[in-house]
């Protein structure tokens, strides 16, 4: 293991490896990524891989749009096929409140330059005949949204970073961060000590704990989110389909499996990774009503991961005040996979050149929670 590094990134998920990748292509040497388990063992390897630009907060829309451009050139740039598919994202509205929300969102999203539109029930029925539209009022649809395979994307960033000279240490846990007079001096790991002046917290569900290692208090908490996948079917679903009021999302993988999940309001903050029968039961009762073909489809696997949540359900991407050169990219709730490319790019610029340059990270600071908190609404 190396004894010193210019930057130590803690966390080998999509965010940590994307940051490492952008650091290395921007010429940063001696970058280290620490991953306590294996690559993609955290939320990344457990997520649905959805890539959506239809958000209610403009900053999220912008970040997502920027990421989509990176996903579009991913294969060319990194030479890896990550099963990226732009089949669109269909947001179903089931009541007036949702219709109003979507209409306002679409207006704002169009201003941001996104290709997005409201579909009537008839249009939904015509384009997606497998949906029972009885209760559907309308929908919002963006054709350039899509999904990708999170493991492959995570591995691809790590391999590219490694090829560019970064050290990726798996099964290596950050145990402590030494700070002297507000300056970081090094990171203690269970496999040795690394001298460094710069640390990036990309620890996903464990962001708060990794913050405390340097005495930085990050207001995040982790919640279990569950997800299931069925046996593979013939290709049916182009878009990823989502509803906030019915509380679900669903997509079909390139291998044909239907993947779907929901949130659970009763969930308390925890690091619980065990799947529950309650989740399977609720999904099995809910989904075939809207998608009758699911009735006879078998569930193959079912697992849980962590949503790392900030008070407003938006990420925290910032540099700490009291400890210099301590960066964090955390609190991604259910959308850290899709934002990772833009976040990686912006944070790399910030570390190397002192500002995120073209990536707008302005509303994502640590200090934003003092006043009134404005929550992102488009979440499951």
């Amino acid at each position, binding site marked *: 293991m190396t004894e010193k590094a210019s930057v130590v990134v803690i966390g080998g998920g999509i965010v940590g490896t994307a940051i490492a990748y952008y650091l290395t292509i921007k010429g940063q040497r001696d970058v280290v990524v620490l991953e306590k388990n*294996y*690559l993609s063992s955290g939320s990344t390897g457990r997520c649905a891989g959805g890539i959506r630009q239809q958000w209610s907060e403009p900053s999220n829309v912008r970040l997502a749009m920027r990421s989509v451009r990176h996903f579009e050139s991913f294969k060319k740039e990194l030479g890896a096929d990550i099963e990226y598919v732009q089949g669109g994202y269909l947001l179903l509205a089931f009541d007036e409140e949702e219709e109003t929300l979507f209409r306002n969102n679409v207006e704002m999203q169009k201003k941001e330059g996104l290709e997005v539109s409201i579909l009537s029930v008839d249009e939904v029925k015509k384009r997606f005949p497998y949906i029972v539209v009885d209760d559907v009022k309308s929908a919002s649809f963006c054709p350039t949204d899509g999904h990708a395979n999170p493991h492959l994307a995570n591995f691809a960033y790590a391999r590219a970073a490694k090829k560019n000279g970064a050290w990726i240490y798996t099964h290596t846990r950050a145990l402590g961060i030494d700070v002297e007079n507000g300056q970081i001096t090094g990171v203690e790991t269970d496999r040795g000590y690394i001298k460094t002046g710069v640390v990036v917290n990309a620890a996903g569900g464990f962001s708060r704990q990794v913050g405390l290692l340097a005495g930085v208090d990050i207001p995040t908490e982790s919640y279990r989110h569950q997800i299931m996948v*069925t046996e593979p079917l013939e290709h049916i679903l182009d878009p990823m389909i989502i509803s906030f009021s019915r509380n679900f999302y669903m997509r079909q993988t390139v291998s044909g499996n239907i993947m779907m999940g929901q949130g659970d309001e009763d969930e308390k903050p925890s690091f619980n990774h065990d799947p*529950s029968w309650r989740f399977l039961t609720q999904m*099995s009762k809910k989904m075939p009503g809207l998608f009758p073909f699911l*009735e*006879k489809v078998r569930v193959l*696997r*079912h697992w849980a991961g962590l949503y790392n949540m900030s008070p407003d359900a938006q990420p925290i991407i910032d540099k700490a005040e009291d400890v210099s050169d301590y960066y964090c990219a955390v609190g991604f709730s259910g959308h850290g996979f899709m934002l990772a490319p833009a976040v990686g790019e912006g944070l790399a610029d910030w570390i190397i050149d002192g500002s995120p340059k073209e990536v707008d990270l302005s509303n994502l600071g640590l200090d934003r929670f003092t006043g009134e908190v404005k929550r992102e609404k488009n979440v499951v």
Partner: protein
Amino acid sequence: MHSPDLLVIGAGPAGLSAAVEAASAGLDTVVVDEGVTAGGQLVKQTHKFFGNEGFFASVRGFEIARSLLEELVDFENVEIFQESSVIGVYEDGIPVLHLPSDTTRLFRPKRVVVATGASEKFLQFENNDLPGVYGAGAVQTLMNQFGIMPGKNVLMIGSGNIGLIVSYQLVQAGVNVKAIVEIADRIGGYEVHADKVKRLGIPVLLKHTVTRALGVESVEGAEICEVDEKFSPIPSTARELVVDTVCIAVGLNPSVELIAQAGGQIRYVAELGGYVPVRDEDMRATAEGFFVAGDVSGIEEATTAMIEGRIAGLSVVRDLKGSTDENKVSRLKKELVGFRNGPISARVREGLQKLGFDVSSGESRTGNLNNPQKYRGKLRPIIECFEAIPCNPCETSCPTGAIVVGGNINDVPVIDYDKCNGCGICMTKCPGLAIFMLQELPDEDSALIGIPYEFIPLPSKGDQVHLLGRQGEMLAEGTVQRVFRSPHKTNSVYVKTPLELADKVRSIRPVLQEDNAFVCRCEELTVSDIEAAIDEGYTDFEELRRKLRISMGPCGGRTCRLNALRILSRKTGKSIEELSFGVLRPPSIPSTLGSIARQKGAEDD
């Protein structure tokens, strides 16, 4: 929702025995079992069992099952659900899928005995995904339970007890067993079982393997090959057999998914069949409230499964009622020790020792006259001849008179290490290949093992070889140190092994060629796919799994996980014990959304 005192998963001999004990102590007991009828492996067994009289020796398997069931039906506090599969063990209960009605039912028992038995190992060869390639268990089920013949002409792979017994049963059912192929140079099962099939005229082709199944829609034939001393098929010996069924009987793996899902620790112990749950003498697993019994805790016999089941049942009673029939428990434990005393259980004893049990069994494995510790470092023979057979070349060949079989030629040989000079002649003379040479080396952590070797060509000094255990299982790699050609045809090969393996390494072989064979049938992954990914740097099982989708198919990894781990072990040089097993995710049995939505006896939530 149902909250019984005890949920028993699996109605094989172990599960049924546990249920009998729990029920007779008055516990509210539910038994769930995947099979159409209760009895587990027993219902498939039409042959007479070996064993101890108290435990139905010489009774046919299915009759044992029937009499255990009769004991149970008298109890009103027992409910048995057949054709009911446990979907998984969740924090909020244990759902069971009832296959015929496609409905589910949730249990929240106070205690659980996991007695799920074992599932078959899978073999890699070309076209092994053609219809007509079956596991021996499936063939037995079809035949003995449903009276359906798997085919007309069968090729059996594997000459262990299961391969031998199933071949016998096939012939009994009027099926033609063309041949039994066995890759090793000797039959794996008991001699008596082998003699039975030999008497039927079924050829047992030693040093042979199947290289591919032939056919388009289903099996129309099979290509078999002789193997060389490296266990690699010799292409020039390939020949085709016209068969419509290939039956694979290459061993069993304990079915540990459920106990692992419950959070029970599992450990790789090759001697017990693979991954087994960590548990104590009372059959208590490390997951709160969970017990195990039978083949799931290590591949053994029906007799031991029944004893373990009873112990587990009595332990549950102790847990819930504060006391149990302790006399019975200690009697059962003694019976277990007695049962595992014999030479045939040597492997099981070794496995149990790895799990931390004291199994110093009274029986000395080598007929040593003197304390073997005293002879550490001396080159000396280890005699593993336990069956009382009429044989004595070891005695007559020894130039120093160190080995004595004695007046009765049926006795086992006894050696006096004081007289032995380490010449190794006995090893080359023993027709049973039951003598090995051992010397602990001065470096303190390795040993020299001499192995009798009858293959051509002989390896040479310096060659890398796989070190294999008594059942041909791969233990490590080693280097050949010396080779002696012997005028008696049995040559000697000396290899260096880690000291802790000195007691285990009993054979050698190089890598088997199996590049285009499927490891994972669900995702159609071959050995070379896996090797390529490992070469790319995916050296963690979980990373491999995510990269290749290995074990993500409907089988949930039952067939491919261990095979993939073996390849990983071979490529990375790490032992399987060191590699992470990866996660076992529910559901264990793929269930439809409809069946999950249709829950019986559950309050709506």
